[in-house]
């Protein structure tokens, strides 16, 4: 069975219509493909397409008490699970040696960095705007939807935000553990002033997903530092990740 045949049966399966021999044949064939990225891609795309069909329907209100009932009945399991995973923003207990980031913790160059990086950000925006045919890179064609990737050598980190509205979503991977009793702190550099956007910690695999109720406002530069877990109000180390923003 080639991928075309698999796709045909997967299309039926994601819509709930597969049965009997076809279901078994599909399972067997996909198993024989082993770790098949193409199979996963096909399945993922078909599943997402099928799910979209549900959104053609007008939503219908649910019993207002349903969420409470679900939460209360499953609370014990949730508490147990939370204990297994630890606090959402606590540094992982099995953190990697902190010295991989130690060289960036002196903080001696922070003020210099802010001044230089902010200047670079402004110059970069101006240079971009002046470049013939250049796309405005900090603000998308639809200003309400912008994604920015951070630069640095501490894994990958991206931020999505809506200019003019509070709140930003951060997600990252391969982020080194910040060390025991340490977290990553997100900073918005506004003028010469770093404003804390909150503290976050990646999971044991270095993945991070966080929604920060921060007002990006007139921020010219985003920065991430490694800080003590008490999340100080001013940076004490040099940034490990930065992302200049276009200022409208």
């Amino acid at each position, binding site marked *: 069975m080639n991928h075309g045949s698999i796709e*045909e*049966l997967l*299309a*039926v399966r*994601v*819509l*709930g*219509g597969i*049965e009997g021999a076809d279901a078994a044949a599909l399972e067997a064939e996909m198993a024989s493909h082993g770790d098949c990225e193409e199979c*996963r891609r096909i*399945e*993922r*795309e078909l*599943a*997402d*397409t*099928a*799910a*979209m*069909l*549900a*959104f*053609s*329907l*007008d*939503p*219908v*209100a649910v019993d207002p008490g*349903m969420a409470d*009932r*679900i*939460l209360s*009945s*499953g609370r014990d*399991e*949730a*508490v147990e*699970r*939370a204990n297994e*995973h*630890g*606090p959402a923003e606590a540094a992982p207990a099995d953190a990697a040696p902190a010295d991989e980031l130690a060289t960036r913790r002196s903080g001696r160059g922070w003020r210099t960095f802010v001044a230089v990086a902010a200047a670079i*950000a402004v*110059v*970069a925006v101006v240079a971009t705007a002046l470049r013939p045919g250049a796309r405005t*890179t*900090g603000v*998308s064609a639809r200003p309400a939807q*912008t*994604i920015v*990737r951070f*630069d640095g050598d501490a894994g990958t980190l991206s931020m*999505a935000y*809506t200019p003019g509205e509070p709140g930003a*979503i951060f*997600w990252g991977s391969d982020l080194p553990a910040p060390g025991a009793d340490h977290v990553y702190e997100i900073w918005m550099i506004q003028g010469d002033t770093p404003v804390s956007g909150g503290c976050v910690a990646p999971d044991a695999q270095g993945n991070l*997903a966080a*929604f920060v109720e921060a007002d990006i406002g007139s921020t010219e530069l985003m920065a991430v530092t490694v800080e003590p877990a008490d999340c100080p109000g001013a940076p004490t180390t040099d940034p490990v990740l930065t992302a*200049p*923003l276009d200022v409208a």
Partner: protein
Amino acid sequence: MLAMLEPARSEPLGTVDLSEARDRELLARLQHGDEDAFRGLFDRYAPSAKALALRVVRQAHLAEEIVQEAFMAVWKDPAGYDGDRGSVRSWLMGTVHHRAVDLVRREEAHRRRAEASIPHATQEQADHADDVVQAIGLPEERRAVRAALAELPEEQRRVLEMMYFDGRSQSQIAEATGLPLGTVKSRTLLGMRRMRAALGGIER
């Protein structure tokens, strides 16, 4: 020096990209037992989930049960989500749809009775018209999906709707339409391909 002058790489981000990023963040918090995260997902998707369940089972109390069971499963086992297999929303809707179809199949006799009294079933939905939450959900996506469905050739749309919304199996559709089973499957695939092409980056 030029590299230093290069500003942050940015690119347009679709509405649903943001939605998916938010969904995954909520799901990550769910792992830690965050009740607000659960409410976030629930408020966002439960009304559409109920619409889907109601469309398949055609009985409001059963649809309500299905949604409750599905979200209970999400609350108790958020680790059941596999990002390799689709978006958070497709996982949630797939869970609801699977339960609804399973119920329909298990209670085939009830199903036939419901089909025999379509006006009754329709009336039941109409009775809940007051509950329709026009303001909730994803109107932009809804318009896009409806438009994509409307653009499908009739024979493909019919097969997709019978399978997904009516919960009929491939052989049931073949029997009802008089089409060869192979034609049902090929029309399903063609319809899904067209939907995907039409929806482009919207689906996630």
